[in-house]
């Protein structure tokens, strides 16, 4: 039996499944951080996590953290280096997979977190942070997005985190995890790998600002096990990141 879960809990489980054992993971905050912890607790006990501020951990922080710089994220770290040290390891090819998100995505997996005029007026977004570096240099990237038409665009206004492009040295977007499904980007096209339980192809097409391949046999995203949910709710007890009005399943 599976207990009730939120879309975001489902996304955390999908994120965790993108991490293989012994991999070196460039970890973001929020859902990817929970996904890393879940992977460590289940199928990837020997995965190692890097944070762009220089922290290297082989297990999640003991306490809930709101930012990667929070003191509990330093306590119990295996190393606390400089930003350029972890970026050097990333550029060297020592990082297998990195997680990034954005305000807009296009079919090539380009992410925009810099500026957009999609809603008419110019809106300035915070910028790249480390996302552009992870997109450029990681062995592969996993994108995590809210699935909304204005965010899924034929071409993003600004490529903050490059997706697939001719002459890319390494990596590129492998998987896109959204509030509606999991999509394969590895071919440079967006192909539905699974839709979350209760989500129809029609819903996805309406929520996507570009044509998207969803074949009829697209499976449903595997639902969280009781153990997976138990881990997530232990790690995010208030549902700060995984809370969601839309209960499903």
């Amino acid at each position, binding site marked *: 039996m599976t207990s009730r879960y939120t879309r975001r809990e489902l996304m955390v489980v999908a994120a965790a499944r993108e991490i293989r054992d012994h991999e070196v993971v460039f970890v973001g905050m929020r859902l990817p951080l929970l996904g890393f912890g879940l992977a460590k607790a289940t199928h990837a006990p020997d995965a190692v996590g890097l944070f762009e501020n220089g922290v290297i951990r082989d297990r999640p922080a003991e306490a809930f953290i709101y930012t990667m710089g929070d003191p509990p994220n330093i306590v119990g770290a295996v190393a606390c280096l400089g930003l350029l040290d972890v970026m050097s390891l990333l550029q060297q090819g020592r990082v297998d997979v990195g997680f990034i998100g954005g305000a807009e995505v296009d079919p090539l997996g380009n992410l925009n977190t810099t500026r957009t005029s999609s809603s008419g007026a110019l809106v300035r977004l915070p910028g790249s942070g480390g996302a552009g570096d992870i997109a450029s240099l990681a062995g592969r990237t996993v994108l995590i997005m809210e699935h909304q038409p204005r965010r899924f665009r034929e071409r993003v206004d*600004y490529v903050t*985190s490059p997706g697939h492009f001719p002459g890319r040295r390494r990596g590129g977007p492998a998987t896109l995890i959204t509030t509606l499904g999991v999509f394969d980007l590895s071919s440079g096209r967006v192909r539905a790998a699974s839709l979350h339980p209760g989500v129809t192809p029609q819903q996805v097409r309406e929520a996507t600002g570009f044509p998207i391949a969803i074949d009829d046999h697209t499976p449903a995203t595997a639902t969280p096990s009781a153990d997976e949910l138990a881990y997530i709710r232990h790690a995010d007890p208030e549902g700060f990141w995984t809370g969601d009005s839309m209960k499903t399943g």
Partner: protein
Amino acid sequence: MSDKRRSLREAIAEQVHDGDTIALGLALESGIPFAAVHEIIRQQRRDLTLVGPISDMAFDQMIAAGTVAKVIAAWVGNVAGGSGYGFRRAYEQGQPRRIVMEDHSNFSVGLALKAAAMGLPFLPTFTGLGGDIVRGHPRIRPVDDPFGGPTLLAVGALRPDIAIVHVQRADPQGNAHLWGNLGLTVEAAYAARRTIVICEEVVPEAVIRSDPNRTVIPGFLVTALVEEPGGALPSSVQGYWRRDFAPFLAYHQLSRTLDGFQSWLREWVLDLPDRPAYLRHMGEAAVERLRVTDRRLAAEANFAP
């Protein structure tokens, strides 16, 4: 040895000038020198260029206060809330003034500082290729690999006039111990023409010399030393202060409007003379809730010869 101790007011008055390029917020979310940020606003510096990786709320406050002409950073906003409304108003509407934005990734702004720290005109990198940040960038140009490999990007050196860093402790000559997050603190202190070290406590030189590997900034690079406990609040300082989340969220709400920002500015900056007054305004109970009283000490390291 010369004693470099100054009050924060003196240090800012002597070392931060209109038009200066200032690196701060270098350890990312921790150790942000908010006390210095507020003192710079009180002293009404103008036309500053701000340099940092992810600035959290500090850059937004300085921009909204009208002290900033240009920002060189990878991310400008409020980590707790996302958007920085002061930054957006300046960038989108020129309120209170127009600002120039030099966009970077964390790696590229770090390499710009590192190039200056190494005394080089540039450092090569592969980051950013295929994206829009590097397209037409004033500080990033293609560079050939003289060994015949693929073309790289050269990130031009960025030498701040001044770096302002917050550390746990330093001796009177400015030899500084920092632990926990480092981010780009070392690169910026090496690169900058002047460095203000703000510390939780000034300690006898014997404390610093007992662990020279912990000295991330040698004193001869330091032009002023300020003892300002709690000077990084509401950001955290490992072993000294927890992060205070409420002010980040409160600022995020208030700063949605210019009026809201002005009321925040009056209450937390303009109507307060200095950081001790800021801490009193927080209230003793609030301050004590944030003060770290537990001890999780680093394992012994014996330096005996």
